[in-house]
Every structure is written in structure tokens, then in C-alpha cells.
């Protein structure tokens, strides 16, 4: 096997998701699974977080959606990171996504008890604002990256009471509007599709530990070359390297690792 062929590991089941308004596992999600399954990436993470000699890494995913990416890396932790003593958290602005993610990850880990990490919780949060500074070792972000003329505001979620219930089948006009709004949050990235990603990059130095690595998904419309310039321009040894790239329909998607 060459280092460009991803390991073949089972994809977590998301069959419990019926009509909840969460981002369904898609090409971008699967590209993240492939990125972590590349033998070259397994080599990178296992040398950066050596088992037995370094403390357990905290793995956090922002915008878990269906939970499929976190479920995959958590369930196959021993294979992907050569250690099971990893703790994971999922963050999403949507309460519905968080309850769905709890199920996806718990099921996947229960199916792979001998390789699974320990999943702690899903938390409703705007990016990483709920976290204690400098504690994340592996951060995963599949952002709303599609360039759009308007960028949906989080104020409906911040100031509304609707977050208290899991939306399954839209019944009222209110439910339907909420569903449409939640789905727009999953993809609409505003100018260059970078408005949310830019906010995360601003927080990065406060969020990642010294050994921390961000895995970031971009599309061609995000102008990855400009993002690399921006990251290296942050100084303090920050770098951004391509992990994997793939054409998906009309999009070219890529996964990058950002670390110092």
C-alpha cells in the first residue's frame, strides 16, 4: 500500500438520522475520513502525540453536524492515532445536531470497543468560545465554506428559545423556518466562504495547545493560497500544509493541517 491510499475502515452509521435538519454525511465529510486514514497522516499524528510518553490528547470537532467525522476518529482511535487514551468533545451551534451527534458517536464507539477513544460530550457553542484556553490538541473543522452573498447571523439561535427542542418533522411555519435557517448555517460561508473560518483562525492561538493541530477543510473558492499566506503571516512558527485534495462535483475540496 502506498502512503496515498487511505486505510479501509468502516464508516459510522447515521441511520438514526431521519428528518432532523443536520448536515448529512457528504463528500466533504468523507474527505476528512480519508485524510485521517492516510498512512502518511497516521504517521504524522502518531509521531506528534506518541502514546505512553505524552498525556492523552483532547480532540475537538467544531460543527459536528451528523457527528460522522468525530464518530469515525473516535471509534478508530487506536488505528488512526496508535492510542485509545484520547478524549473527544463535539461542538455545534445547533442543539439538534448535538443530540444527533451524541447518538452517532456513542453507537460507533460501542461497535468498536477495542479501538475506541472516550467521547465526553456535545456542547452547543459558537466555535470554541466555551473552551478553557490552550487545551485542544486535535481540532477538526469542516466549516460553512460555500461563498454566499449573505452570511446568516447566529442571533436567531442566541436570542431565541427554539434551541430547547430537537427538530424532527417540521410541522408549523416556525419549525420550517427554523429548519431552513439551521441548514443555511451548515454551508453558507459569506464572502469567499471564509467568514466563519476567518473567525476561527483569529481564535486559533488561544485554543490550541502547544502541540495542537487544526484540520481544516477548504474549497477552491476559499482561495487556499491566500489562507496559507494568512496563516504563515500570523508568525510564531504557524504553518499550513496540504493533507489531501479531491474534486467533488463542481468543487475542489482540500484538507489542510495548521500547526506551529
Amino acid at each position, binding site marked *: 500500500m502506498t502512503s496515498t491510499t487511505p486505510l479501509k475502515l468502516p464508516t459510522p452509521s447515521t441511520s438514526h438520522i431521519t428528518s432532523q435538519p443536520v448536515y448529512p454525511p457528504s463528500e466533504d465529510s468523507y474527505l476528512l475520513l480519508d485524510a485521517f486514514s492516510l498512512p502518511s497522516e497516521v504517521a504524522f499524528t502518531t509521531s506528534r502525540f506518541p502514546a505512553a510518553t505524552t498525556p492523552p490528547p483532547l480532540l475537538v470537532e467544531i460543527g459536528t453536524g451528523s457527528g460522522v467525522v468525530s464518530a469515525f476518529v473516535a471509534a478508530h482511535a487506536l488505528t488512526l492515532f496508535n492510542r485509545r487514551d484520547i478524549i473527544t468533545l463535539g461542538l455545534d451551534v445547533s442543539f439538534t445536531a448535538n443530540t444527533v451527534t451524541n447518538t452517532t458517536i456513542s453507537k460507533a464507539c460501542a461497535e468498536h470497543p477495542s479501538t475506541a477513544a*472516550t467521547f465526553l*460530550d456535545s*456542547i452547543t457553542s459558537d466555535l470554541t468560545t*466555551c473552551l478553557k484556553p490552550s487545551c485542544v490538541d486535535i481540532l477538526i473543522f469542516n466549516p460553512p465554506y460555500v461563498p454566499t452573498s449573505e452570511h446568516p447571523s447566529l442571533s436567531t439561535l442566541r436570542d431565541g428559545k427554539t434551541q430547547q427542542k430537537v427538530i424532527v418533522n417540521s410541522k408549523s411555519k416556525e419549525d420550517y423556518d427554523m429548519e431552513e435557517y439551521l441548514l443555511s448555517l451548515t454551508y453558507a460561508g459569506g464572502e469567499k466562504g471564509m467568514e466563519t473560518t476567518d473567525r476561527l483562525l483569529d481564535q486559533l492561538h488561544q485554543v490550541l495547545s502547544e502541540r495542537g493541530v487544526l484540520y481544516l477543510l477548504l474549497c477552491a473558492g476559499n482561495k487556499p493560497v491566500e489562507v496559507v499566506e494568512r496563516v504563515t503571516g500570523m508568525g510564531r512558527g504557524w504553518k499550513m500544509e496540504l493533507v489531501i485534495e479531491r474534486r467533488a462535483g463542481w468543487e475542489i475540496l482540500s484538507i489542510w493541517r495548521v500547526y506551529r
Partner: protein
Amino acid sequence: MKLLTANFLSCAVKACKSSPLSFPLHFKDAELASKSVPYNPILLSNLLPRLDWPALVTSSSELGFTLPQQKPEITPFTPTSSEDGDAVMSGAGEEDEKTLRMLHKVLMETEVVEGKMVCGSCGFEYGIHQTVANFLLPSHLV
């Protein structure tokens, strides 16, 4: 929300991040449940060095558990596998095993189903509903 998770959270208000009072957040009106989680002594003993122990003692006492004031010293061990594939502690003393079982029960299996977490700096209350804590701030606090 698991008790252990509180060790990684602090107030989402920007001005609070630098305040020592914003960590740990304080549990209030917590309804607890016990949820079975696979016992992983290797994780627990390796995790101890990176935990903020005083914060854990505070969080635990707010939920009715008493942890020792000093972080337990667990003897290093070599991991081996039992027949059913579960990690077991080889060479871990009986005392260490007792401590790890206790930590597992308190940190991993104690779940806050409903309740609040309060910031000691600004007083903001974060709700916990169906085990999911809500850290989205209202617009006027962003």
C-alpha cells in the same frame, strides 16, 4: 454533561477568559444520572497529570462527591490485554485500582442531565438540557 467535561470549559464571555473566576464554572440545580461507560484505567491514569485537580474537587463537591484534596499518585504500569480485549492494569496496586474505579464513577459516569453552570466572574448562567450545555451567548454579550 460528564463531570470531567467541566475541566475543559470556561465562561464564553471574552472579558472573563483571563479571569481566574471564570474557571471552573459552578454547577447549580443539577439533576444527575449515572450512565455506564467502559472502564479505561489507562486513560484515567494518563489523564491525571493534565487535569486541573482543585477545579475537579470544586466541581465534584457541587454535585455531592468528595474527592481527595490532593491529586492521587498512581503508580505507572504497563498496559496488557485481558481475554475479552479490555485494557487491564498490570502491576497496579489494590489502592490504585480502588482510586481509579472511584474516579471513573465520578468523572466519567456521572452525568448532569438538566441544570446550570454559573460563571464566578460575570454571573452568567449556562443552561444544561438533555445533557447538552448551551454556551451560545445572547447577542448583547457577544
